[in-house]
């Protein structure tokens, strides 16, 4: 955390501007100093909160979900919303220990539901992708 704040401070100082309170450099600099101070304060006065980190199994699940969302972002344009979101939904349901027989129907139905509501009824564009010719 301290390292992060110092990095922020250095990048604030490296901004290409005059060091004048009215300019765009001074204010981030003040923030970075405050960040550094509060990180140091946390080292000196650690809070008595004890963190329970998730066990290995649950940590894997979190990592899997996060990766799935990441991949979703990359394939969204090519595959289109319905296909990529169905896969994501299926992965999430599996991670949350849904019954096997429910995963496929629920994930496909809910994604199509979202598509109809957001894209068709509300006019917010979601990429059609592979199914382009089919649903346009």
């Amino acid at each position, binding site marked *: 955390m301290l390292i992060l704040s110092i990095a*922020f401070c250095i990048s604030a100082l490296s901004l290409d501007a005059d060091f004048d309170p*009215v300019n765009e450099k001074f204010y*981030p600099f003040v923030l970075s100093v405050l960040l550094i101070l*509060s990180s140091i304060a946390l080292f000196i006065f650690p809070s008595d909160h004890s963190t329970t980190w998730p066990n290995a199994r649950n940590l894997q699940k979190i990592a899997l979900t996060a990766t799935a*969302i990441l991949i979703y972002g990359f394939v969204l344009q090519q595959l289109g919303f319905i296909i990529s979101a169905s896969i994501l939904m299926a992965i999430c349901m599996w991670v*949350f220990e*849904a019954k096997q027989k429910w995963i496929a129907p629920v994930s496909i139905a809910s994604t199509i539901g979202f598509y109809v509501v957001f894209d068709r009824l509300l006019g*917010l*564009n979601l990429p059609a992708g592979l199914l382009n010719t089919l649903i346009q």
Partner: protein
Amino acid sequence: MLLHGFSVALSGLNVFLVFIGVFLGTIIGMLPGIGPINAIAILFPIVLQFELTPASALIFFAGIFYGSQYGNSISSILLNVPGTSSAAVTCIDGNPLAKQGRAGSALAMSAVASFSGGVLSIFLLVLFAPLLSKLAIDFGPAEYFVLMVCAFTALTSFSHGSFIKAVFSAILGLAIATVGIDELSFGGMRRFTFGVEELGDGIDFIVVVIGVFAISEVFLFLSDMSSGAVQKVAPLKSVLLSLKELKDSVAGILRSCVTGFLVGVLPGAGATIASFLAYNTEKKMAGDKGNFGKGDLRGVAAPESANNSSAVGSFIPLLVLGVPGSETTAVMLAALITLGVTPGPTMLTDQPDMFWGVAASMFIGNMVLIVLNLPLVKLLAKILLVPRWILMPLIAILSIVGVYVLNGSEFDLLLMLIFGVIGFIMRKTDFPLAPLILGLVLGGLIEVNFRRALTYSYGEFSTFYDSPITIGLWLITLFSLVAPFAIRKLKNRSQ
């Protein structure tokens, strides 16, 4: 003025929005994992799409907010699981009542108390807000800057947990807000974009809010998950209250409403503290005669009245001073800014439609809620049966849809994920999120007012402490810094 408000609130669109808002709010309040903040953030792109006026948007969001306070109590009573922390107190007496087979009476009491608390506090809002706004006319950039500093100190020192962590969280929020093109500098200076083209427009607050609240909620659920846990919904018979039960609770409802309202107005305190305070007061007043903790209807009435009136009270700093005091109102302010409202102490005089319209719509919303909650509560309670394995994936999908449709950018999805991880770590290590959100939302305003004030005063820092208003605000800031420590000291001594 209020009549004018009703003319705004009673227009077809706004009645529809109130109805949808409180209905959605009730459901959102019942379900774990999706609070009013997430709902507002996810629904915001839709509000933009339909080009709602700021007044209509706020009427809608407010409906979601106080509607969720009603819904909260349903899951507290029937499941012993509060939808959000503010309903935790309702569990104490609500769930024992449900176990005794009196879930219906508890729900009826909570609906009546929520309604009375809500309506009475709207009267307080209409009464006090215009008085306060008279004080706020002489505000310049310097005064507004100091006011925001004051809001921050109050929020960080009243928020539970470590003070230093709250400060760190607030400054982190302010720092995130500096990313992007600087509006004030000549030619638009890019800051902290690290050469990434997409960061030029800054980081959208919706992306951060959904990441930090919704995505991290999914992660949190996963991290505490153990297989095989099944939840039981208490059976629900008739939803009825006897006249005597009502009469016993009236005084408590009134007291709790005032407490809730005052606590709601304070930045940082909010519904959770309000309901705890109200519950403890009633418990002490009942003394040995009460059945508190084992299923006393008054123990349901007090926190429900208090958390609804604190929701209304929290609109005062937002609408009168343009400074939000809680994360939910902060998100509302950010939404209003995007819709073109200039926030600040003149909001009430500049946008009378908004204030009076929202106040009047709250009356309508509370009417709708009592109708929803008394006869239809049996139907609504069915929603609690939705299993986790369907609910959490749906929240994940809703989040990514909400973030994507905002700008149609995949980069925002990546940012959302990063903030999801940050939010998860912060919640695990007990860093409060409210200061982060407030920092993010007010960051731009604070910097603009700070630099504008310095420009007007030719770089003289004395502009921040040479008017009576700024001096007064600094005194309040100092007080809010010292007060929590002093209260703790006094408590320790009396024990």
